[in-house]
């Protein structure tokens, strides 16, 4: 009887509390508000067909989560060591053996989840869109036309949740780069930031081989090549990491042309990732205010009416941000031999638009890849890549290739490089030296480089203000 009374008291207490005492408190709490993703048989095809890529994304989720948790919970003086430890774990363990299924991020970032559930929710919802688009592209049962329609449908579904969806209107880059807390994280933790940007590079870059491949074999080879480029970025950190946030329009131009709304959403998502890193890293924002600042930023990125830029301005951002080379290189371009460490551009600041002669991601040491990837690559791309690399390493052959337009064209086509991303053979084969050194040595180029995105700025010309942001 005593126990019964205790139970009755407990339940009554909960009920009473909920009725009278807690509503005010509960009203201030975040709601869970999870929603199922758009159903269809295409779901999970990417994991089935490209597990080596899909599982990497699970490790990326861990990387994002643990970064926020450490930034939030570790005092400034301990952050370097904590992030270094996590970086080592990620690059020597988790990325090499990524989990089969998605990571329960609340487990990795318990404090951050409790602080900013809405941010986690918005990221989850956008990552879901990412994943579903991969699934659609990977499903060979769906025709190209139906794939495009389906991608637009899942994008509609994504946007139907106004409370958690990033706007499909491009937000001003100034929100990421010119607020009072901006760039703190990337300045203090360039290596970890580079790792995050390499994640973002792969997350958008992988769309390209899936779209450009005409057959399953071509798609598989393309995905492997793009993965190889990602692994090459992890060599000699942070020299080969992207130097600027990879923009979807630059890294995935074909995808962007077909699905501009989704491309914009992903750029807004990736900007928000950087913003939250800055807010969490900023000592000028007390811990008690971080949630409010983050929630203000989230509201900003759901709003497509202010601090926005036009689609044309957005597509042109690549030039202002240093071009495709600064963003990690083209997703489907040729891999070339690794440059000696002495030639690394770590100490050499790369001016905007001058990075193409040494594309950041254009070296692909296969040793950097896990064994599984190496095995796959040997079956597909590696022999061809090795052949190209050996041939182009020979100065006589290189000269002949450079002189022969037909051979140059065949080389480009063989590598499935989209026209907008094509790099001249001489640039591909040239040992990766800092671009800024070339003019100093007055080394005559055998052939002029074809125009490339981000190379239109004359050296020394001041950058125009970022579009979409009103400057006082």
């Amino acid at each position: 009887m005593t126990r019964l009374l205790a139970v009755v008291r407990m339940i009554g207490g909960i009920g009473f509390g909920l009725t009278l005492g807690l509503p005010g408190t509960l009203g201030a709490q975040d709601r869970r508000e999870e929603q199922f993703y758009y159903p269809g048989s295409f779901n999970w095809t990417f994991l089935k067909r490209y597990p080596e890529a899909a599982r990497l994304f699970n490790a990326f989720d861990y990387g994002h989560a643990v970064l926020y948790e450490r930034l939030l919970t570790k005092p400034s003086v301990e952050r370097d060591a904590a992030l270094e430890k996590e970086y080592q774990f990620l690059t020597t363990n988790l990325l090499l053996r990524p989990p089969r299924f998605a990571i329960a991020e609340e487990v990795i970032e318990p404090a951050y989840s409790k602080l900013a559930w809405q941010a986690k929710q918005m990221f989850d919802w956008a990552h879901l869109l990412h994943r579903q688009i991969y699934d659609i592209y990977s499903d060979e049962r769906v025709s190209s036309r139906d794939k495009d329609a389906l991608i637009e449908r899942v994008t509609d579904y994504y946007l139907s949740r106004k409370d958690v969806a990033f706007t499909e209107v491009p937000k001003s880059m100034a929100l990421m780069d010119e607020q009072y807390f901006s760039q703190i994280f990337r300045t203090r933790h360039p290596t970890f930031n580079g790792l995050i940007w390499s994640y973002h590079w792969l997350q958008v870059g992988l769309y390209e081989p899936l779209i450009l491949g005409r057959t399953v074999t071509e798609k598989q080879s393309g995905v492997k090549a793009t993965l190889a480029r990602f692994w090459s970025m992890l060599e000699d950190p942070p020299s080969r990491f992207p130097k600027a946030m990879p923009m979807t329009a630059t890294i995935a131009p074909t995808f962007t042309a077909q699905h501009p709304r989704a491309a914009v959403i992903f750029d807004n998502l990736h900007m928000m990732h950087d913003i939250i890193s800055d807010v969490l890293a900023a000592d000028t924002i007390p811990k008690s205010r971080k949630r409010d600042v983050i929630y203000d930023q989230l509201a900003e990125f759901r709003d497509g009416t202010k601090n926005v830029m036009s689609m044309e301005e957005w597509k042109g951002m690549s030039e202002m941000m240093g071009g495709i080379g600064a963003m990690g290189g083209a997703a489907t371009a040729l891999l070339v031999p690794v440059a000696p460490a002495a030639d690394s551009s770590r100490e050499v600041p790369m001016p905007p638009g001058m990075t193409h002669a040494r594309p950041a991601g254009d070296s692909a040491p296969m040793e950097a890849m896990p064994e599984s990837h190496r095995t796959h690559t040997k079956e597909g791309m590696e022999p061809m890549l090795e052949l190209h690399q050996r041939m182009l390493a020979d100065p006589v052959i290189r000269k002949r290739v450079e002189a022969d337009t037909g051979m140059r064209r065949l080389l480009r086509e063989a590598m499935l490089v989209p026209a907008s991303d094509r790099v001249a053979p001489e640039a591909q084969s040239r040992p990766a030296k800092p671009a800024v050194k070339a003019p100093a040595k007055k080394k005559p180029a055998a052939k002029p480089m074809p125009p490339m995105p981000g190379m239109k700025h004359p050296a020394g010309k001041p950058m125009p203000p970022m579009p979409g942001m009103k400057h006082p």
Partner: protein
Amino acid sequence: MGWKLVRVTMAAGGLILAHPSLAQAQIDYRNLDDDRPTLIEDAYPVERYAFELLTPWRFSRDRAGGTIHAFVPELAYGLLKNAQFGLKVPIAGASATNGRDWGVSGLRVFAMYNFNTESRSLPALSIRSDVTLPVGRLSGHGTRLSLKGITTRSWGRTRLHLNGAYTFGKDRPLAAAEAANKWWYGGAVDHTLYRRSVLLIGEVYALRPLASAPVQVNTSVGLRIQVTPYLVFDAGFARRLKRTAGPDLELTAGFSRAFALPGLMPAGRSR
């Protein structure tokens, strides 16, 4: 009749679990459902627009040697934001003097509402209501209404769940399986192995089936494993801690799968 009924139920469940044309879905192995495999559940309902189908089996042996096999197919649906509604149709086979007596063991309709996700100041809080209807040969007598309070609090990979439930109404014979106990309360701790997508769970609870029955104190352990992106397997084991009351042994295992039906999804805004 008994095994045939069970086979039909299992076949229907298997069809839904395996049917390729249904929307494939991911079930979170960390979504701790009641009885799957522990009595205690977490405070979070299924996602909005998601269906969750569970096809568990449970074997129970009491102190006197009587045994019960139970198949408890369950379907839950995230009808509203932060709320789920569901239906359970337990089919039980109770040992009898002339073999095993099979039949439907009542019909249970339930709703659960989650007030909040866990924050720095509050655990996740939910309330659940079950109505047990006397449908079937082994359903006991009378309609019963139960109310349950649920909380979940986490510390990284470890979570604590507290549940407490009370059933209104007079003492009447209970259903053979999935009975609405007079009251029960307990706590469970789970631990996530995030790289393997496995949840390990242990619980202790006190339970009084009827106002006139002795109080049981039981414990159970179990695990939930993500088998595919949309399928979870769970298994558990329970035993009484008091000598005088409770099961000698309980074993349970089952699959659960979440899915959605395109026709029930919001169309999304038109371009």
